[in-house]
């Protein structure tokens, strides 16, 4: 199989380039893209990419495969290969450190901004803060985010304003704490989001939904935040 992979080593290359490599795929097997990268690294040990759990849990190997972001470890080559070819690029919109490794600082800065931890001013109970099964259900589809950055780096609003627009991943997490019955900082959280960039730069094109490897729906969460902001303002 022909794999065209983005290469860039700032110590060696002046500009990034695409390297075409022929990789022998064992007959009768539908490997994951990450396995193909492992075969590729055997041929060329200078090839750099991130990986850890290799089962879609850690979110390390987010990359752009034939034009669509996803996790290399849970994407079979049969799902991405076109005419027997795979084009692998780093996640778009973030600075490239080397080959497929991107600098995620901007992404994490936005995550930090939404204060992704439970805030509760009431005295802590002796055991734990209880939550009804109905209230717990509201967190489904939100808490599963693994911060792989596939969604935010597929979002043009995040490309143009990565320092100002929180992005789909951060906003999904923001809503996860806004809707949590145990969190009492709802007003402060909403006040911090009510500007023309943080939430409202979302134009609802739903690239985030189409690429999320965990099948989550950040656009829906953003819609809920928008409704909360509008209700707060009326």
């Amino acid at each position, binding site marked *: 199989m022909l794999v065209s992979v983005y290469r860039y080593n700032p110590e060696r290359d002046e500009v990034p380039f695409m390297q075409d490599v022929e990789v022998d795929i064992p007959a009768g097997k539908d490997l994951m893209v990450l396995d193909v990268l492992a075969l590729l690294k055997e041929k060329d040990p200078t090839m750099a990419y991130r990986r850890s759990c290799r089962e879609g849990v850690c979110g390390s190997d987010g990359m752009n495969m034939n034009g669509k972001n996803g996790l290399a470890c849970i994407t079979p080559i049969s799902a991405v290969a076109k005419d027997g070819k795979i084009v692998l690029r780093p996640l778009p919109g973030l600075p490239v450190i080397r080959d497929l490794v991107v600098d995620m600082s901007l992404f994490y800065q936005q995550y930090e901004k939404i204060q992704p931890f439970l805030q509760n001013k009431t005295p802590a109970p002796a055991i734990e803060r209880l939550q009804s099964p109905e209230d717990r259900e509201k967190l489904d589809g939100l808490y599963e985010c693994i911060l792989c950055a596939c969604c935010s780096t597929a979002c043009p609003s995040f490309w143009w304003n990565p320092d100002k627009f929180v992005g789909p991943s951060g906003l999904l997490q923001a809503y996860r704490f806004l809707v949590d019955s145990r969190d009492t900082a709802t007003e402060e959280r909403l006040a911090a989001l009510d*500007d*023309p960039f*943080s939430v409202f730069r979302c134009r609802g094109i739903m690239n985030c939904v189409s690429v999320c490897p965990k099948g989550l729906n950040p656009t829906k969460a953003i819609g809920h935040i*928008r409704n909360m*902001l*509008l209700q707060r303002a009326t």
Partner: protein
Amino acid sequence: MVTSVTNFGRSGAYDWMVQRVSAVVLAVYTLWLVGLIFFCPMDYAGWSALFGKTSVRIFSLMALLALGAHAWIGLWTVTTDYIKNGLVRFIAQAGCGTVMFFYVVWGVQILWGL
């Protein structure tokens, strides 16, 4: 909280609401105007009499102001997306604002000068 001195209403929710309400006003006005052009052909005297009515002038002024606000928020968004140099962006935004203000005042003059 990301602050910006150049946006319309200081708040994302406010800008969002203005954008939606002005869009509805513009849609209704456009349908009304296109309907008139296609289904009630008029000569100059007819149009002149129609736009001599205070209600039509108020409706048109409403559409004009809605257009000004809608265009400002829209172009402000576009310029903040694509123009990264602060000075160039400010000049572009000032240009857009001036043109829109010019059109609104000119529109008022036309509406009440007929």
